[in-house]
């Protein structure tokens, strides 16, 4: 008897989108940033698009795959960087879950992205403070990090919104 795992077209699409997210994440990690810890988080655009097209379960999969596989590729698996990445993503996925239950009518991907980015950054700051550097200097840096979260969250959200509205035009679901 032959056992064949049949991958659907959806599986392929999700796999490619996950690969894309991972790729963006890794390349972004290679880029120098003026302030350590601040990245545009462009891979989050993929998460948002996947959520809009396929729902929260697949968005969660793509996000977590991005964190795990990305860290394996970069070489930071199970390192503090990985812990931070994971904390941030878990927090933003929680926000996404709440949105999927209650907020779908109230906000577009734009507002959602901002909230997810804030949750992501806040979770990371809290983890750093509690587990790594319990120093007040961190509080002094928080305005900078949260500004970045709002800025890049808005940017990513806007891009995701535009992409989705184009796709919806083509594939109304």
């Amino acid at each position, binding site marked *: 008897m032959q056992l064949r795992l049949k991958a659907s077209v959806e599986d392929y699409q999700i796999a490619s989108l996950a690969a894309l997210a991972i790729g963006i994440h890794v390349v972004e990690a290679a880029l120098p940033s003026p302030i350590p810890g601040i990245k545009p988080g462009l891979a989050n655009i993929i998460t948002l698009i996947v959520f*809009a097209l396929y729902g929260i379960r697949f968005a969660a999969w793509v996000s977590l795959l991005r964190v795990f596989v990305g860290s394996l590729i970069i070489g930071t698996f199970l390192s503090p960087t990985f812990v931070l990445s994971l904390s941030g993503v878990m927090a933003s996925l929680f926000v996404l879950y709440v949105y999927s239950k209650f*907020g*779908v*009518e*109230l*906000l*577009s*991907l*734009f*507002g959602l992205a*901002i*909230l997810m980015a*804030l949750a992501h950054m806040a979770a990371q700051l809290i983890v750093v403070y509690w587990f790594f550097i319990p*120093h*007040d*200097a*961190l*509080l*002094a840096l*928080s*305005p900078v990090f*949260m*500004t970045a979260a*709002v800025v890049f*969250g*808005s940017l990513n959200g806007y891009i995701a*919104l535009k992409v*989705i*509205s184009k796709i*919806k035009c083509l594939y109304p679901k």
Partner: protein
Amino acid sequence: MVTKLTAGDFIVFFISISFVFTLYVLYWGEDQHARHAEIIVSGKKQYILDLNEEKHLEITGKLGKSIIEVSNGQIRFVESSCSSKQCIRSGWISQVNALAACLPNGVSLHLVGPNARFDSINF
């Protein structure tokens, strides 16, 4: 699924901006008042106190007891087992990096805060 910007989006956006602005005001101010006091006993950090919480704390050092009081963002020694009582005489301290100590008892108060403009204080 909404494909256009909603009123909710703008609300979220503006609330986030206000939130971030508040953070700047809180943590980037030139205010040199400390937020926490570290209490070091015989070389080990034993307590971290929030200066915004009123508190009376009894600490046991080499010689005996020292009593610390926190009030209104300030901290001081109220009583101590040392003979010179110099620690009590230094009174209330509230500035970032300020120090007060009962040397004979091995207890020192070290103020920390997010806006430390100075790495060390000379006095």
